[in-house]
């Protein structure tokens, strides 16, 4: 164990005699120095500061009071200082390795505490130098850092501290106001004065102070665009290193800015002021003018420092206490006017430059740069795009967080990992392509500005280096979001007038767009079109076929409609003029007709006295010719035997038909006393109920034709009390349904009475069953029945003979029609089936 030494950095075992770690190059001599005599880091700092003893007297008082106030012993070495020291050493070694030098590093020694302070200053400077070096080495910086320039910058830094201590009385007044407004924060600020962070380099104090208390107001938290004005005095920047060669997070630290040479910083500042927004320049000019007016004898550098500090403090003051007293020199109204101007200019910038790259440099700067720039002049515009400028002084408080919007991102990234530790190099630096010539497209950025905005799309975003992507603000990556935010409506009236992005009081209905017009066209595929074509082909012939069929059917129907009755009329008319004296009548007569004749003549004529015959007429007027032809022989027989005839009808027209038939029969038997022996009971209402009531009680049910005469008291009906008092009931009907009612009711109520039936030809088929069941005693059906009765009674056959002959001829015609119609229908069906098969 004694001959090996473990590297505290990388834990690699090395020989005890080795000075540096084989793996990481860690200097073991630092740790091997006797801690009891003197801290090695202090010795290192002293050695490093021996070269510049003249700068010790220029150290700020705060640095001298640092250890005294803090009460720390010299034996205690802060970790951060160790780390800085290590990094410094590593960078030097790395630089030597790269440059091919193999000489060993000089051990650092220190002598006393005063050297420690100097060494701290030197450490800062060396650290700055180292940090610049390794960054420059990573980016192939051709210009090495000149130590003399660094020393000069150190001197300028010290002078700058002195200038800060000699602030003009206005700043004291502002600070007093600030103390009144924020005593707690002031206390914190005072506490920070005694913290070691004050003794740290500016960049480190910036980081540590950020990490300790973000809420603490600090000048370092001022946005980037204000940082150069505030932190970079003109006479302090003597280093040849240009701030645009540094990353953004480095540019915002003090130690880099402090090392800028004065002349270059002036140029830079002038360039920046030229490229900064006008409103910022106006503010700075106003501040400078005021400072110059108040202290015209002061140096220019002091004036610039005062201006920068004044502007910074003024911003802080206004942000936090807008209503506080500012002073006679600075009026709130003026600031409001400036803010209004700012707002107008910002809006103009937003309109004119909707999308600006994050880093835009002037042509002169681009020419002076050999490495990638990190700070663009228009960077302030990028972060400023996201700022919602307050329209009133009350809203200035809200502006303050936006001022720190960009910076905390870097601070948070640097809070835990220091960027100068070699092993903890950020990823974006590790992946840097050293040969990548990215400055070239930036050099042509001026041309891109001039070119049309449409050319912006041609820029390949994918070619951006990763380090640029890593440090790009979100607004650049997604510019549309910021654009959407900036397009939000500003209230123009009401209590919220002037505010942006609030619930609008405008009528929402005005913002509605008209409803979209939807097309009514149907998207039809080719397959559907083919189906439609097939369907049309199927339907169209059928429609045409039906039309032709209808036409032909109409013509044929008209021909049939005229020819058939005309031919029938011709035949019948011809038959009327033919002599029918030699007609041959049927020899076999229907049995029901014979029974009818036997009952009508034999039963009625068996008694010496006239019988009472009830004739029920259930006929329509259309049946009059047939019924009259059939029944005329029967009524003539009744009239000849002088029987009592009583008629009734359940059909209103039957009353007239009965009267007409009886009177026609009476014409053939003039000896019959028709008015005396014939009684017409008229219409019997109630259908089945009326029939049933009449058969049950004929006197009370049947009405009398003559209302003033009680017919049931006259001689023919005075003897009739019930239906059974009638000797015979004769039903004359052309309606089988009504005849059925009469038959059923008579057989039910008057089963012993004789019932004869005279029916038309159309009603007889349905009444044959009642004849077969003997419910009807006899029946004359159709013209054949009348002819049979006349033949049996040997009465005259004048009309019935003629009609019989004409009917036979007409029946033949009808048979011909039926057969012809059957044949035609068969042929039509055959033709239809053939057409259907053809169509199929």
């Amino acid at each position: 164990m004694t001959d090996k030494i473990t590297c505290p950095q990388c834990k690699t075992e090395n020989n005890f005699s080795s000075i540096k770690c084989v793996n990481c190059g860690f200097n073991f001599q630092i740790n091997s120095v006797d801690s009891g005599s003197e801290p090695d880091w202090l010795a290192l700092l002293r050695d490093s500061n021996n070269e510049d003893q003249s700068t010790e007297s220029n150290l700020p008082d705060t640095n001298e009071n640092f250890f005294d106030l803090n009460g720390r012993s010299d034996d205690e070495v802060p970790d951060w200082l160790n780390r800085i020291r290590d990094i410094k050493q590593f960078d030097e070694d790395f630089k030597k390795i790269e440059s091919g030098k193999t000489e060993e590093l000089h051990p650092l020694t220190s002598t006393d505490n005063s050297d420690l302070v100097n060494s701290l200053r030197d450490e800062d400077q060396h650290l700055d130098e180292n940090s610049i070096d390794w960054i420059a080495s990573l980016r192939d910086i051709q210009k090495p850092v000149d130590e003399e320039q660094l020393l000069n910058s150190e001197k300028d830094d010290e002078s700058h501290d002195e200038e800060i201590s000699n602030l003009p009385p206005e700043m004291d007044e502002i600070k007093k106001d600030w103390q009144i407004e924020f005593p707690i924060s002031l206390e914190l600020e005072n506490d920070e004065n005694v913290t070691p962070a004050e003794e740290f380099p500016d960049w480190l104090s910036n980081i540590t102070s950020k990490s300790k208390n973000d809420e603490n107001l600090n000048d370092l938290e001022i946005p980037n665009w204000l940082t150069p004005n505030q932190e970079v005095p003109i006479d302090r920047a003597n280093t040849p290193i240009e701030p645009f060669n540094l990353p953004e997070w480095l540019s915002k630290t003090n130690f880099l800015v402090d090392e800028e040479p004065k002349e270059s910083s002036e140029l830079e500042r002038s360039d920046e002021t030229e490229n900064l927004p006008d409103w910022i320049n106006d503010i700075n000019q106003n501040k400078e003018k005021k400072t110059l007016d108040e202290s015209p004898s002061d140096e220019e550098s002091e004036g610039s420092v005062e201006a920068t500090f004044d502007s910074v403090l003024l911003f802080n003051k206004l942000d936090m206490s807008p209503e506080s007293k500012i002073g006679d020199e600075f009026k709130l109204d003026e600031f409001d006017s400036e803010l209004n101007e700012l707002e107008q200019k910002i809006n103009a910038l937003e309109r004119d430059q909707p999308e600006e790259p994050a880093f835009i440099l002037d042509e002169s700067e681009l020419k002076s740069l050999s490495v990638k720039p990190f700070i663009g002049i228009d960077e302030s515009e990028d972060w400023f795009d996201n700022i919602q400028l307050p329209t009133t002084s009350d809203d200035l408080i809200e502006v303050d967080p936006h001022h720190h919007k960009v910076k905390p991102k870097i601070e948070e990234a640097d809070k835990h990992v220091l960027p100068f530790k070699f092993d903890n190099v950020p990823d974006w630096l590790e992946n840097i392509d050293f040969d990548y010539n990215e400055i070239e497209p930036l050099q042509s950025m001026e041309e891109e500005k001039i070119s049309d905005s449409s050319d912006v799309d041609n820029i390949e975003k994918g070619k951006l280096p990763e380090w640029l992507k890593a440090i790009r603000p979100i607004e650049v990556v997604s510019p549309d979001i910021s654009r959407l935010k900036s397009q939000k409506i500003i209230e123009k009236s009401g209590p919220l007038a002037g505010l942006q992005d609030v619930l609008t009081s405008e009528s929402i209905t005005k913002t509605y767009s008209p409803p979209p017009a939807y097309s009514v066209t149907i998207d039809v595929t080719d397959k559907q079109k083919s189906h439609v074509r097939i369907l049309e082909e199927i339907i169209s012939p059928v429609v045409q076929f039906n039309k032709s069929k209808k036409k032909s059917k109409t013509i044929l129907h008209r021909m049939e409609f005229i020819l058939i009755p005309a031919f029938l009329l011709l035949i019948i008319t011809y038959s009327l003029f033919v002599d029918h004296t030699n007609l041959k009548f049927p020899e076999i007569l229907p049995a029901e007709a014979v029974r009818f004749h036997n009952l009508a003549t034999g039963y009625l004529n068996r008694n010496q006295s006239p019988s009472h015959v009830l004739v029920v007429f259930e006929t329509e007027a259309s049946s009059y010719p047939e019924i009259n032809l059939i029944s005329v022989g029967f009524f003539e027989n009744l009239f000849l035997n002088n029987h009592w005839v009583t008629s009734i009808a359940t059909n209103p027209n039957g009353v007239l038909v009965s009267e007409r038939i009886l009177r026609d029969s009476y014409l053939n038997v003039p000896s019959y006393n028709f008015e005396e022996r014939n009684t017409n009971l008229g219409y019997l209402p109630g259908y089945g109920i009326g029939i049933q009531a009449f058969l049950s009680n004929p006197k009370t049910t049947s009405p009398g034709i003559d209302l003033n005469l009680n017919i049931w008291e006259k001689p023919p009906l005075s003897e009739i009390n019930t239906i059974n008092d009638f000797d015979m009931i004769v039903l004359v009907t052309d309606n089988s349904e009504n005849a059925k009612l009469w038959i059923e009711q008579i057989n039910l109520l008057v089963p012993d009475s004789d019932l004869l039936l005279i029916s038309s030809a159309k009603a007889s088929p349905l009444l044959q069953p009642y004849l077969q069941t003997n419910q009807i005693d006899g029946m004359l059906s159709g013209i054949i029945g009348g002819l049979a009765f006349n033949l049996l009674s040997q009465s005259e056959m004048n009309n019935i003979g003629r009609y019989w002959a004409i009917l036979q001829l007409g029946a033949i015609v009808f048979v011909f029609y039926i057969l012809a119609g059957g044949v035609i229908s068969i042929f039509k069906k055959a033709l239809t089936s053939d057409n259907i098969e053809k169509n199929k």
Partner: protein
Amino acid sequence: MNQDQFFWLLFSFILTIMVFSYIFGDNPLFRIATYLFIGVASAYVFVLIFYQVLIPKLIMPIFTGDTTQRIIQIIPITLSILLFFKLSKRTSSVGNISLAFLVGSGSAVILTSAFSGTLLPMIDMITEPFSLNSLNFQKLIGGSILLLGAISSLLYFQFSTIITSDNQSIFSRFMHYSKTVGTVFIGITLGSIFAGVIISSMLALIERLNFIITFIYNLMSG
């Protein structure tokens, strides 16, 4: 022939010609004749019912009848008044009372008469040829045909869905064939009725043509 007879014969002749004009299709002459017939028939029916039903059956008993007849007359009068409510759709339900009475009483009368006067006699007639007392071959054949016709005609009016699938049961096949046989018998019956209608119509036509020819002949002969 006096003038009145001539006028009515002439009027009858004109109306007959107007009705015959339907041979050439529907025309105003035919429509006038039919409208005239319907109008005259309706008016006649109204007059007939008013004078032969309402006055003697409904009104006269109130004025000429005794107290019992008057009290009894309240029922038909009330039922008759309720029938007037059928004129309005809102109050038609009130008239249903009278209709219910009419339909109920009419159905009762018709059903009893149909059962005793039609159904039982028909069953007796159908089964009579198969009586052992008067068993005859001809009657048996006639009776069998009659029975087959009656059963098949009744089975024709079956209110069920016709099954056309191949897997038919015996019962469904029997029903299908019986329907076919019933169709034949029903067709014969309807044919006979149609023949009777033709004969009746032809007789009416012959009578009207005879009237026209006679009228023209008498008119021409003076």
